[in-house]
Protein backbone atom coordinates (compact mmCIF):
# COMPACT_ATOMS: atom_id res chain seq x y z
CA UNK A 1 0.00 0.00 0.00
CA UNK A 2 1.60 3.22 -1.16
CA UNK A 3 1.15 5.71 1.64
CA UNK A 4 2.28 8.80 -0.28
CA UNK A 5 1.23 9.15 -3.93
CA UNK A 6 3.05 11.72 -6.06
CA UNK A 7 2.22 13.11 -9.49
CA UNK A 8 3.18 13.75 -12.18
CA UNK A 9 6.05 11.36 -12.75
CA UNK A 10 7.78 13.89 -15.00
CA UNK A 11 7.28 17.51 -15.88
CA UNK A 12 8.75 19.84 -18.50
CA UNK A 13 8.36 23.61 -18.20
CA UNK A 14 9.94 26.61 -19.81
CA UNK A 15 12.14 28.98 -17.85
CA UNK A 16 9.98 31.32 -15.81
CA UNK A 17 7.09 28.85 -15.64
CA UNK A 18 5.51 27.58 -12.42
CA UNK A 19 5.73 23.79 -12.14
CA UNK A 20 3.30 22.25 -9.66
CA UNK A 21 3.87 18.83 -8.10
CA UNK A 22 1.11 17.14 -6.14
CA UNK A 23 1.08 14.58 -3.37
CA UNK A 24 -1.65 12.74 -1.51
CA UNK A 25 -1.29 10.78 1.70
CA UNK A 26 -3.39 8.19 3.47
CA UNK A 27 -2.17 8.05 7.06
CA UNK A 28 -3.91 10.77 9.07
CA UNK A 29 -1.25 10.41 11.77
CA UNK A 30 1.30 12.12 9.51
CA UNK A 31 2.16 15.55 10.91
CA UNK A 32 5.29 16.61 9.04
CA UNK A 33 5.46 17.06 5.26
CA UNK A 34 8.83 17.92 3.69
CA UNK A 35 9.87 18.27 0.07
CA UNK A 36 13.30 17.10 -1.04
CA UNK A 37 15.32 17.93 -4.16
CA UNK A 38 17.73 15.38 -5.58
CA UNK A 39 20.32 15.88 -8.30
CA UNK A 40 21.86 12.86 -10.10
CA UNK A 41 24.48 11.15 -7.97
CA UNK A 42 23.58 13.17 -4.88
CA UNK A 43 21.53 12.51 -1.80
CA UNK A 44 18.17 14.25 -1.30
CA UNK A 45 18.33 17.76 0.18
CA UNK A 46 15.51 19.40 2.13
CA UNK A 47 13.81 22.27 0.28
CA UNK A 48 10.89 23.22 2.48
CA UNK A 49 8.59 21.53 5.00
CA UNK A 50 5.14 22.18 6.47
CA UNK A 51 3.03 21.01 9.39
CA UNK A 52 -0.76 20.53 9.17
CA UNK A 53 -1.59 23.57 11.31
CA UNK A 54 -0.91 25.91 8.37
CA UNK A 55 -2.30 25.86 4.84
CA UNK A 56 0.61 27.49 3.04
CA UNK A 57 4.32 28.09 3.56
CA UNK A 58 6.64 30.05 1.33
CA UNK A 59 10.43 30.07 1.28
CA UNK A 60 12.03 32.00 -1.55
CA UNK A 61 10.66 30.69 -4.84
CA UNK A 62 9.22 27.54 -3.25
CA UNK A 63 5.68 27.34 -1.84
CA UNK A 64 3.88 24.43 -0.21
CA UNK A 65 0.10 24.40 -0.24
CA UNK A 66 -1.53 22.02 2.25
CA UNK A 67 -5.13 20.77 2.33
CA UNK A 68 -5.65 18.73 5.49
CA UNK A 69 -9.25 17.69 4.76
CA UNK A 70 -8.30 16.38 1.33
CA UNK A 71 -5.04 14.90 2.63
CA UNK A 72 -3.15 16.57 -0.19
CA UNK A 73 -0.20 18.91 -0.47
CA UNK A 74 1.65 20.44 -3.37
CA UNK A 75 4.88 22.19 -4.27
CA UNK A 76 4.94 25.28 -6.50
CA UNK A 77 8.20 26.62 -7.90
CA UNK A 78 7.94 30.26 -8.92
CA UNK A 79 10.03 31.68 -11.78
CA UNK A 80 11.60 28.29 -12.46
CA UNK A 81 15.18 28.20 -13.70
CA UNK A 82 17.21 25.56 -15.60
CA UNK A 83 19.14 24.98 -12.37
CA UNK A 84 15.91 23.73 -10.79
CA UNK A 85 16.02 20.71 -13.10
CA UNK A 86 16.14 17.78 -10.68
CA UNK A 87 13.97 15.08 -9.15
CA UNK A 88 11.62 16.26 -6.42
CA UNK A 89 10.25 14.01 -3.68
CA UNK A 90 7.43 14.71 -1.29
CA UNK A 91 7.53 12.89 2.01
CA UNK A 92 5.55 12.49 5.21
CA UNK A 93 6.39 11.55 8.77
CA UNK A 94 4.74 11.43 12.17
CA UNK A 95 6.23 12.51 15.43
CA UNK A 96 4.51 9.75 17.39
CA UNK A 97 7.08 7.29 16.14
CA UNK A 98 9.79 9.40 17.81
CA UNK A 99 12.08 8.98 14.85
CA UNK A 100 10.49 11.12 12.10
CA UNK A 101 10.97 8.20 9.74
CA UNK A 102 10.19 9.57 6.27
CA UNK A 103 7.77 7.94 3.83
CA UNK A 104 8.60 9.21 0.35
CA UNK A 105 6.61 9.55 -2.84
CA UNK A 106 8.04 8.05 -6.03
CA UNK A 107 9.41 11.34 -7.28
CA UNK A 108 8.86 13.85 -10.08
CA UNK A 109 11.59 14.51 -12.61
CA UNK A 110 11.47 18.21 -13.48
CA UNK A 111 13.13 19.63 -16.57
CA UNK A 112 13.23 23.41 -17.00
CA UNK A 113 13.96 24.40 -20.58
CA UNK A 114 15.91 27.64 -21.14
Amino acid at each position, binding site marked *: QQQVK*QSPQSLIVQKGGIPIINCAYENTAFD*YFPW*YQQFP*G*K*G*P*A*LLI*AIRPDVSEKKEGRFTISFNKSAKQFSLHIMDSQPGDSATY*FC*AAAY*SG*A*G*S*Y*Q*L*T*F*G*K*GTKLSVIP
Partner: protein
Amino acid sequence: GAGVSQSPRYKVAKRGQDVALRCDPISGHVSLFWYQQALGQGPEFLTYFQNEAQLDKSGLPSDRFFAERPEGSVSTLKIQRTQQEDSAVYLCASSLLGEDTEAFFGQGTRLTVV
Protein backbone atom coordinates in the same frame (compact mmCIF):
# COMPACT_ATOMS: atom_id res chain seq x y z
CA GLY B 1 33.43 16.89 7.95
CA ALA B 2 30.60 19.27 7.22
CA GLY B 3 28.11 16.71 5.95
CA VAL B 4 27.12 13.07 6.09
CA SER B 5 29.83 10.93 4.54
CA GLN B 6 29.24 7.49 3.07
CA SER B 7 31.73 4.95 1.79
CA PRO B 8 32.32 3.39 -0.56
CA ARG B 9 30.52 5.49 -3.18
CA TYR B 10 30.22 2.49 -5.46
CA LYS B 11 30.35 -1.22 -4.69
CA VAL B 12 30.09 -4.15 -7.08
CA ALA B 13 29.49 -7.48 -5.39
CA LYS B 14 29.12 -10.95 -6.79
CA ARG B 15 25.89 -12.68 -5.83
CA GLY B 16 26.36 -14.40 -2.49
CA GLN B 17 29.09 -12.06 -1.30
CA ASP B 18 28.79 -10.10 1.97
CA VAL B 19 29.11 -6.31 1.87
CA ALA B 20 29.51 -3.57 4.49
CA LEU B 21 28.49 0.03 3.88
CA ARG B 22 29.73 2.81 6.15
CA CYS B 23 28.07 6.04 7.27
CA ASP B 24 29.75 8.92 9.11
CA PRO B 25 26.96 11.21 10.35
CA ILE B 26 27.26 14.89 11.15
CA SER B 27 29.02 15.30 14.49
CA GLY B 28 26.55 15.60 17.35
CA HIS B 29 23.58 14.20 15.44
CA VAL B 30 21.71 11.79 17.66
CA SER B 31 19.42 10.29 15.02
CA LEU B 32 20.69 8.17 12.15
CA PHE B 33 18.62 6.58 9.40
CA TRP B 34 19.30 4.14 6.57
CA TYR B 35 17.18 4.23 3.41
CA GLN B 36 17.22 2.12 0.25
CA GLN B 37 16.57 3.83 -3.09
CA ALA B 38 15.87 1.64 -6.11
CA LEU B 39 16.44 3.11 -9.56
CA GLY B 40 13.77 5.66 -10.41
CA GLN B 41 12.06 5.33 -7.02
CA GLY B 42 11.86 7.29 -3.80
CA PRO B 43 13.97 6.28 -0.81
CA GLU B 44 12.45 3.61 1.43
CA PHE B 45 13.12 3.44 5.17
CA LEU B 46 15.27 0.61 6.43
CA THR B 47 16.24 1.32 10.03
CA TYR B 48 16.67 4.05 12.68
CA PHE B 49 19.18 4.62 15.48
CA GLN B 50 19.00 7.02 18.39
CA ASN B 51 22.60 7.18 19.58
CA GLU B 52 23.70 3.53 19.74
CA ALA B 53 20.19 2.11 20.19
CA GLN B 54 18.47 0.66 17.15
CA LEU B 55 14.91 1.72 17.86
CA ASP B 56 13.26 0.71 14.59
CA LYS B 57 14.36 -1.93 12.11
CA SER B 58 10.96 -2.54 10.59
CA GLY B 59 12.11 -1.65 7.08
CA LEU B 60 14.93 -4.18 6.80
CA PRO B 61 13.78 -6.46 3.95
CA SER B 62 15.21 -9.70 5.28
CA ASP B 63 17.42 -11.18 7.98
CA ARG B 64 20.33 -10.82 5.56
CA PHE B 65 20.34 -7.10 6.39
CA PHE B 66 21.98 -5.97 9.62
CA ALA B 67 22.88 -2.51 10.89
CA GLU B 68 24.89 -1.32 13.86
CA ARG B 69 26.07 1.92 15.48
CA PRO B 70 28.09 0.65 18.44
CA GLU B 71 29.41 3.98 19.75
CA GLY B 72 26.56 6.19 18.69
CA SER B 73 28.40 7.82 15.81
CA VAL B 74 29.58 5.80 12.78
CA SER B 75 27.11 3.24 11.47
CA THR B 76 27.56 0.19 9.28
CA LEU B 77 24.91 -1.50 7.15
CA LYS B 78 25.83 -5.08 6.38
CA ILE B 79 24.19 -7.24 3.76
CA GLN B 80 24.94 -10.95 3.83
CA ARG B 81 24.72 -13.28 0.84
CA THR B 82 23.82 -10.45 -1.54
CA GLN B 83 21.13 -11.03 -4.16
CA GLN B 84 20.47 -9.16 -7.40
CA GLU B 85 17.39 -7.54 -5.89
CA ASP B 86 19.67 -5.86 -3.33
CA SER B 87 21.07 -3.65 -6.10
CA ALA B 88 20.16 -0.07 -5.14
CA VAL B 89 21.54 3.14 -3.68
CA TYR B 90 21.81 2.98 0.09
CA LEU B 91 21.36 6.38 1.71
CA CYS B 92 22.29 7.39 5.21
CA ALA B 93 20.76 10.44 6.92
CA SER B 94 21.37 12.06 10.29
CA SER B 95 19.58 14.67 12.33
CA LEU B 96 19.33 16.25 15.73
CA LEU B 97 16.60 14.92 17.99
CA GLY B 98 13.25 16.64 18.26
CA GLU B 99 10.69 18.49 16.17
CA ASP B 100 11.51 20.56 13.13
CA THR B 101 14.90 18.98 12.74
CA GLU B 102 16.15 18.53 9.21
CA ALA B 103 17.43 15.14 8.10
CA PHE B 104 20.70 15.56 6.18
CA PHE B 105 21.44 12.87 3.61
CA GLY B 106 24.76 11.54 2.41
CA GLN B 107 25.50 10.95 -1.26
CA GLY B 108 24.75 7.28 -0.91
CA THR B 109 26.48 4.03 -1.81
CA ARG B 110 25.45 2.52 -5.14
CA LEU B 111 25.48 -1.26 -4.75
CA THR B 112 25.40 -3.43 -7.85
CA VAL B 113 25.09 -7.18 -7.40
CA VAL B 114 26.20 -9.19 -10.42
